[in-house]
């Protein structure tokens, strides 16, 4: 039965600033569920895109079914018997299930034959479908079923599933697993991308663990424990830490108390009872794999979403959960959301104009609604100089800056207001090493001067380097917090993978 079905041979894929896949080689055996496990940015998606014909690798090749795979597009991949179910569905919401299925078929077949095929697939793989129902009326799990049936109509030998359980309820997960097991039994092979350790152990036969674009291990899941997988996924990250705890005061600056928020949307993660506290001068980290409620929590912390179900946000004895972002800024709270272009900065505007997006009480940017252009320009130039932003000047458009420079500018804008609390999401996401170092250093310096900082990040190295305490968010719940210096990396990995 150990017949190799897909072989990755030295796949290397480079992007302008990162090498996403470095000499990736491993085999997937026929009739298995093969897990591809790794943190965000480990290179899983890139590898899968290469396999599905969306990307071309610089080096290496793939053997598929004992032949070298030569494809340029997903449709060629499908012709070769490779199907993929994406995390985000591509269905026509207003059409019925049947119409959506018909649209997915590339050759002409008769209506009655299609009906027959659908019934076969439905009963064989535990995929009940109401063909007349419009897509809008379906739950996320049902929509996923439509996607799977659509792929199965083309009779693929290899099925790629990209984090399929992220939008499902526990019951739906269970029924998905029954389907996947039935498919494997029939001789099909499944490549299952995930970061959930539990699923690897309960569902998959083999697992390949990736970290920083490289394969760390590829083995059978027998004899593997969640703990062991977690360590492999994260690596040994605890080196000597120089984090300074001495300046932290006992005064609690910020408190989140039992925040709960339901969204009724499969693409949002409901938040459950989130509580944490941040002391004066402390950097508090929130770790976790993307999509576990970070952006939802960020919106609530910034004040872009003020409609939480229950809970309190307390800043220096003020209840601020109903404050909008401007009211929070008036209390000297600064924010840097994850997305620079179009969120914390407007690409079409100049740097000076972008300064105006966040006004703090002592800025004097406006006088009775009229702009104080000199003040604004001075502030912009100050940020550019103090934070080494590389740009021709304050009248350059934000879109002309590199990601790292724009991030330095945005963070500089917020830090220059001398905030009492800074809430920052993914501070060094997608930027070069030099900018990364200077941003981390400026956050550490800010905390030394008494500012409390909340950092949400997927980058464990970063959190371990700069935070004093951290907690892990998983599926909308936040774990207890740990002193970063004393943290056990295995435990961290388990928490991120959803195991207590």
């Amino acid at each position, binding site marked *: 039965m150990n017949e190799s079905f897909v072989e990755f041979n030295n796949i290397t894929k480079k992007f302008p600033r990162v090498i996403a896949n470095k000499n990736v080689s491993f085999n997937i055996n026929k009739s298995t569920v093969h897990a591809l496990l790794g943190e965000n940015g480990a290179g899983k998606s890139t590898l899968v895109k290469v396999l599905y014909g969306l990307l071309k690798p610089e080096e290496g090749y793939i053997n598929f079914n004992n032949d070298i795979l030569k494809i*340029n597009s997903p449709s060629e991949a499908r012709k070769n018997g490779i199907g993929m179910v994406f995390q985000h569905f591509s269905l026509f919401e207003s059409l019925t299930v049947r119409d959506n299925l018909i649209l997915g078929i590339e050759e002409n077949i008769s209506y009655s034959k299609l009906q027959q095929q659908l019934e076969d697939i439905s009963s064989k793989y535990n995929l009940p479908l109401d063909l007349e129902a419009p897509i809008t009326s379906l739950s996320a799990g049902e929509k996923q079923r439509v996607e799977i049936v659509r792929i199965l109509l083309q009779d693929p030998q290899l099925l790629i599933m990209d984090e399929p359980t992220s939008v499902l309820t526990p019951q739906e997960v269970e029924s998905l697993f029954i389907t996947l097991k039935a498919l494997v039994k029939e001789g099909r092979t499944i490549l299952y991308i995930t970061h959930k350790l539990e699923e690897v152990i309960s569902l998959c036969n083999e697992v390949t663990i990736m970290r920083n674009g490289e394969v760390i291990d590829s083995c059978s899941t027998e004899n593997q424990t969640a703990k062991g997988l977690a360590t492999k996924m994260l690596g040994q990250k605890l080196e000597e830490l120089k984090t300074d705890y001495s300046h932290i005061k006992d005064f609690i600056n910020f408190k989140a108390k039992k925040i709960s928020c339901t969204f009724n949307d499969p693409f949002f993660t409901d938040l459950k009872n989130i509580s944490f506290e941040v002391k004066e001068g402390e950097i508090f980290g929130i770790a976790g794999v993307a999509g576990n409620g970070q952006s939802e929590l960020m919106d609530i912390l*910034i*004040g*872009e979403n003020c409609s939480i179900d229950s809970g309190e946000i307390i800043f220096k004895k003020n209840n601020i959960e109903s404050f*909008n*972002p*401007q*009211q*929070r*800024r008036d209390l000297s709270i600064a*924010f840097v*959301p994850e*997305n620079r272009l*179009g*969120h*914390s*900065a*407007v*690409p*079409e*505007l100049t740097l000076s*104009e972008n300064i*105006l*997006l*966040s*006004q703090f009480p002592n800025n004097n*940017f*406006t006088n009775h*609604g*009229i*702009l104080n*252009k000199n003040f604004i320009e001075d502030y912009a130039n100050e940020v550019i100089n103090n934070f080494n932003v590389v740009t021709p000047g304050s009248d350059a458009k934000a879109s*002309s800056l590199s990601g790292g420079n724009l991030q330095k500018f945005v963070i500089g804008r917020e830090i220059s207001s001398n905030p009492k609390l800074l809430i920052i999401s993914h501070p060094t996401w997608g930027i070069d090493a030099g900018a990364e170092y200077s941003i981390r250093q400026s956050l550490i310096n800010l905390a030394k001067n008494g500012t409390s900082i909340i950092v949400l990040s997927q980058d464990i190295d970063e959190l371990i380097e700069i935070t004093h305490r951290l907690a892990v968010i998983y599926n909308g719940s936040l774990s207890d917090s740990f002193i970063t210096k004393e943290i056990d990396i295995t435990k961290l990995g388990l928490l991120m993978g959803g195991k207590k």
Partner: protein
Amino acid sequence: MTNLFPTIVSRAQSSNIMNIFVPIIAIILTLITGSIIFSLMGFNALFALHTFFISPISTTYGISELLVKATPLALIATGLAFCFKNNIYNIGAEGQLTMGAIFGGGIGIFFHDTNSFWLLPLMIIGGAIGGSLWAMIPALLKNKFNTNEILTSLMLVYVALLILDFLVVGPWRDPDGYSFPKTRPFSDSGRMPLLFDGLRIHIGLIITLILIIISWFVFAKTIFGFQLKVSGFSPIAARYAGFNQKILIYLAFGICGAFAGIAGLAEVSGPIGLIYRDISPNYGFTAIIVAFLGRLHPLGIIFASLVIALTYLGAEDAQLFMQIPAAVGFLFQGLVLFYLLGADFLVKYKFEFKKSK
């Protein structure tokens, strides 16, 4: 081997200079296309273009007429700039203009036998309120129910026109008017004072210029103007900045409606002097072209309003002297918009013929 169809690629850096020249290029291309069309229709293209674009403004009276037409266009387009900068597509300026004429003109009809200095200012305020209330309807619907303002504002144009129709044939019909669908004339103090004897340009031109200067100040120098711009470019950034987008929507609609309402009132109390069915030759719609041709910038809008006003005059002259249908004027307006949008697109994107593998 090249592919038959080019791919559209975003230009990394769109040229700022080209952005300014786009309207001029659009006008030149319009003239070239126009002369081709005239030639195909069997006219001497140069003579036709001369009749269309030069002879209408070769007299003082012609220039005055140009300004009479450009005034409402510029005023409405400036109002529309408040909406368009905020990415609100208010297409209903024509209805807001009509409502302004009804409200302001209604005051004029009510006081048709009064002569007072205060009558005209009162009518102007009435016009502003009328237009602005009418614009509040799509704003309210958008804020409360997230309706598409393009549809609602456009549909309300026809409602407003029917209300106007009802009034001039019904309750407001001139009792001494031999059953013609028009109202009584306003009293002299309810008319826009003329700037020069014998010419039709009136004080509305001055009001428009003042409002355009104020608008320029608001766009360039105030936090409100900045808020409109940010929420137009990126609603998410506006939310991050803590701008209240619902209030911005009300304000943008309200200001636009007020400007259109004043333009409507200025039409009825200016050149016309009473209310009848056809108070506006689609100024409210044409102003959309003016606003974009003028790059939503007050100075550009003044320039664009003169160009577009000329197509109105040219069409009249061409009909008179060359028996070319007056609809050719609309053809020119359409051509300008077409080339403008096309040139805009090409400044941002380019075509690439990729070699296929």
